């Protein structure tokens, strides 16, 4: 079997009637090695700063 066809994500959604719908969707990962988007790196840095200032306030 092709390794790519095994890649999947399961999404569990709780319905009004108490049941859970499960969707299985194929995913197609991109494993090209390259840097992350600079915009995302900035968002991660901002998140880390927010988290570190929050933990300092708790102390």
């Amino acid at each position, binding site marked *: 079997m092709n390794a790519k066809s095994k890649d999947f994500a399961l*999404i*569990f959604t*709780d319905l009004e009637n108490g049941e859970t719908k499960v969707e299985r*969707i194929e995913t197609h990962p991109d494993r090209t*090695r390259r*840097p*992350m988007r600079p915009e*995302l790196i900035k968002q*991660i840095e*901002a998140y880390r700063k927010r988290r570190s200032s929050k933990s300092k306030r708790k102390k």
Partner: protein
Amino acid sequence: MIQTPTCVGLVLCEKFVVEENSRNLTLVNCFQRLAVAELPWTAEPFYLYFCLTDGIGAGTLLVEIADADGLARVDEIPIAIQFDDPTKRKRLVASVTGCTFEAPGRYQVTITADNEFVALSVFDVELMEA
């Protein structure tokens, strides 16, 4: 996506079990550290569990695995998703297969929704001593 979801928990695990009737999830061997025998190392398949809430509309989630400074991204998994009710939670499990790590150190898993940051978790890849 009209409103970016919030993530409640992001966990890496080796296996998971879905109970047939309740569809409850059991995560098996959750980890934050991968011990490898040699480098580069292609990891055994593992899974990412995360739970999203407070989202509205349709969009694409992107799960990215990269080294700690973001310079070497090793995997990017796109997942199409639709949120109808922001008060409801969606639980997700994504498989990660054939992910190759070339160096030891800290790696990060990030989730974005239509390019907006949602969640971050880190794990370490360590070389086992012979």
